[in-house]
């Protein structure tokens, strides 16, 4: 195995076929004949094979698979030839596991679809081709397998080709290759077969080695979703994230979303020294010349060709859950590096995978594919999936069970958008929900969860986070008793203005002193105190921002809980023990109380 030869490219492809089409055998054959298997692996398979060397055993890794003789889960295989590296996403063809097909196709640029020469084009074949195309694969290899069982008849092969072309002409642009093979015997898998003289094209492996390398990126405008803010010892910041499109160099101007500030890139720091440029698909870190507020979920983008900042978008959805996709249900959408609340606001159509026709629908069930309009509570910075897979895709998550429910590919999005902006406070009157507790007790996390839920319920809602406030409204204030009280009074002032205007204001601030909290309560009136209670030891162990560590080493004098007191509320409206209950339980507890006050 010539793994040391120069690598000219990487091809990620997926394989699909119906049950018994011989897909596991084909992959076993590819690995075996390209000499990518070790002797002990072959011996292990020989031991469990009933008849000679059953290649499928090489890939059916789970006990249930071997027992049932089927492939259950998507598996990844790696092999190399002197010409190229390959990653195979081996996906099961069984209908109930269609979600795995989409999973495998999501990272692939080519799909090998197996057809049993005796059975021809099946509904499953059409489904596999359609899903591959939907996930952005524009190159399909139709491997007509078990040719030995139809006496290598050209007529059979041509009939299958014609039937597939009739279907695929409706798919849209796509490169197609048809190869007659026998995976069991190895005909046209790695080496060309002498038993199929009428076929003069390449073997499957020859074809895979020769398709153009499409991983080399075409020039596209910069997209860098911020993943993580790196702070060094001197507290200077670098914004780390994957380059989803384009490239960036020191001196470039970039647009920060959502703030829409234009900033110059100062440098691209790395462990190996400052970089001259970073490009897709590198994992970059960018230091900016000006101090701006940038965090996870923000995006650095080309100022001339920015992505769409959308709160409403239309997407193709592959649904993967027993629980159907329905309107008026809150989902979480993970898109690049942000997770936002979203609701399906319109079911546009459902795709009939057999006929490729669109029909009306009210919901999407397991394994169904449809077009859906979503509204999100915060803008996402996106491009159409056809233009950029990374900024055009998202997954849907169930906020209650945490399960991944579906995958969505954005077709179109409108700048701004979303009918929810400026909703009248129809649901009730304003109030201030004041989350107090130690650092790392979970105030901001709970605040964000409440924000998402209240927004989804149609309330006007605003979040005042202590950390954010100290970077702007209260910039320059320190941590003396006087400054802390002043900090709280300013937050209280803003909260009161918003509350008066019908907004539900979520304040998350340590606010350690009882007297000033009471002062703010009297001033605002419509005030709910939530004690986010977690023992000091637990908070210190969490130490989300590393502050306790700095406080203990004497770098942060006057730190609440360490050498400055925290005065717990005496009669909070709600108390959440975040060390004992889940975020969901805490959220529900607060919501139950608020509902009684909001109506």
């Amino acid at each position, binding site marked *: 195995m010539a793994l040391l030869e120069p690598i000219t490219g990487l091809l990620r492809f997926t394989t699909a076929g119906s049950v018994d089409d011989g897909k596991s055998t084909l992959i076993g054959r590819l690995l075996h004949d390209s000499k990518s298997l070790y002797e002990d692996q072959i011996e292990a398979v020989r031991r469990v094979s009933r008849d000679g060397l059953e290649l499928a055993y090489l890939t059916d890794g789970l006990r249930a698979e071997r027992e049932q003789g089927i492939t259950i889960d998507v598996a990844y295989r790696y092999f190399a030839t002197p010409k190229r590296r390959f990653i195979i996403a081996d996906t099961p063809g069984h209908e109930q596991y269609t979600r795995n097909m989409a999973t495998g196709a999501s990272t692939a640029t080519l799909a090998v679809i197996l057809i049993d020469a005796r059975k021809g084009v099946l509904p499953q074949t059409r489904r596999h081709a359609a899903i591959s195309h939907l996930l952005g694969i524009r190159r399909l290899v139709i491997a007509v397998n078990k040719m030995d069982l139809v006496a290598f008849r050209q007529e059979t092969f041509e009939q299958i080709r014609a039937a597939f072309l009739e279907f695929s002409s409706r798919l849209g642009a796509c490169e197609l290759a048809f190869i007659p093979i026998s995976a069991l015997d190895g005909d046209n898998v790695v080496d060309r077969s002498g038993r199929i003289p009428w076929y003069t094209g390449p073997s499957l492996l020859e074809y895979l080695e020769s398709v153009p390398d499409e991983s080399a990126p075409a020039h596209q405008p910069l997209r860098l979703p911020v993943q993580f803010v790196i702070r060094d010892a001197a507290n200077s910041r670098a914004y780390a994230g994957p380059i989803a499109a384009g490239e960036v160099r020191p001196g470039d101007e970039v647009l920060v979303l959502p703030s829409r500030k234009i900033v110059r890139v100062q440098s691209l720091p790395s462990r190996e020294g400052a970089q001259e440029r970073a490009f897709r698909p590198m994992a970059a870190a960018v230091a900016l010349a000006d101090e701006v507020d940038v965090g996870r979920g923000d995006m650095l983008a080309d100022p001339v060709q920015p992505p769409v900042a959308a709160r409403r978008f239309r997407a193709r959805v592959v649904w993967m859950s027993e629980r159907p996709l329905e309107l008026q249900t809150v989902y979480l959408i993970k898109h690049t590096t942000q997770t936002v609340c979203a609701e399906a606001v319109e079911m546009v159509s459902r795709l009939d995978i057999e006929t490729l026709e669109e029909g009306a629908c009210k919901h999407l069930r397991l394994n169904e594919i449809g077009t859906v309009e979503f509204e999100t509570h915060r803008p996402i910075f996106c491009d159409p999936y056809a233009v950029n897979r990374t900024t055009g895709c998202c997954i849907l998550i169930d906020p209650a069970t945490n399960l*991944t429910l579906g995958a969505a590919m954005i077709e179109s999005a409108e700048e701004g958008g979303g009918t929810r902006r400026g909703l009248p406070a129809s649901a009730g009157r304003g109030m201030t929900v004041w989350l107090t507790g130690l650092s790392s007790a979970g105030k901001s996390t709970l605040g964000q969860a409440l924000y998402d839920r209240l927004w989804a319920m149609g309330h006007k809602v605003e979040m005042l986070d202590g950390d954010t406030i100290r970077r702007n409204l209260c910039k320059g204030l320190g941590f003396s008793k006087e400054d802390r009280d002043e900090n709280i009074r300013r937050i209280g002032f803003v909260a009161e203005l918003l509350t008066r205007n019908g907004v539900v204001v979520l304040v998350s601030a340590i606010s350690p002193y009882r007297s000033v909290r009471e002062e703010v309560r009297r001033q605002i009136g419509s005030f709910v105190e939530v004690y986010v209670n977690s023992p000091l030891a637990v908070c210190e162990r969490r130490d989300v921002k590393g502050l306790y560590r700095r406080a203990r080493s004497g770098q942060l004098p006057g730190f609440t809980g360490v050498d400055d007191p925290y005065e717990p509320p005496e009669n909070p409206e709600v108390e959440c023990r975040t060390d004992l209950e889940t975020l969901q339980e805490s959220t529900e507890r607060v919501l139950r109380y608020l509902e009684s006050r909001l109506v």
Partner: protein
Amino acid sequence: MENGLSYLRLLEAESIHILREVAAEFSRPVMLYSIGKDSSVMLRLALKAFYPAKPPFPLLHVDTSFKFGEMIEFRDRTCAELGLKLIVHRNEPALEAEANPFRLGTQRCCAALKTRALLDALAEGGFDAAFGGARREEEKSRAKERVYSFRDSRGRWDPKNQRPELWNLYNSRIDKGESMRVFPLSNWTEVDVWRYIQLENIPVVPLYFAREREVLERDGQLIPMEHNPPLRPGEAPITAMCRMRSLGCTYCSGAVRSNATSVAEIIGELELARRSERENRVIDHDQEGSMELKKREGYF
């Protein structure tokens, strides 16, 4: 390099993306550091991902007490040089009860000193995400592993109940008590690891390099003598030119005959290798489907 990344840099970028994603979305991640070549690569990737800051998580070594002395020395030196926080966890009650592979057999020994110890260490530290250096190419049940592998509140893996994983969008949502095992090296192969070690000049434990070592030749395996495995009648240690291809506990990591004394020579040897890297890991083969069963119980 002008228009694209080399294959190794592509793998590097993918892995760094995963490391950062976990650091951003979990409250208490930890990196399992097993001292081997994969851990060494994973650690280097973590140093890159958060540069100029240190990785925002500690390292955890589950020490069975049957590791090679050279491994422990390498571990302590590496962590000291890099100024990293290291947690060492041992299943002390089991060790006091004299758990060892000779008395318990390899399966029960592994269950007590590795799996149990790991689960205890994760619970004790309150860790909600743990990085591991496992690769899908290593073993066939690992080929079906996700990058984010969900574990229930008892640390168990249910291969039939994993979340679909599309693109590079990882679902990090878990409830209290549940956790995620995360594998940043999922798409790396053994030879990728060595090529990267060569490219980046990453230090590795000298056990990977061939020299003459005292070993016991038994059932086709070369078993290191470091923890004095009891000899069967008629057996005697021999001296053989060999190296470790995969590092674990001394008794369960068979050596392979080799003359490779440098990374380049190891890569050259792998190019010609006809045997897989885990062949000499005794614990993988105690029964068919052995790795899957261990993973279901909470093994990495």
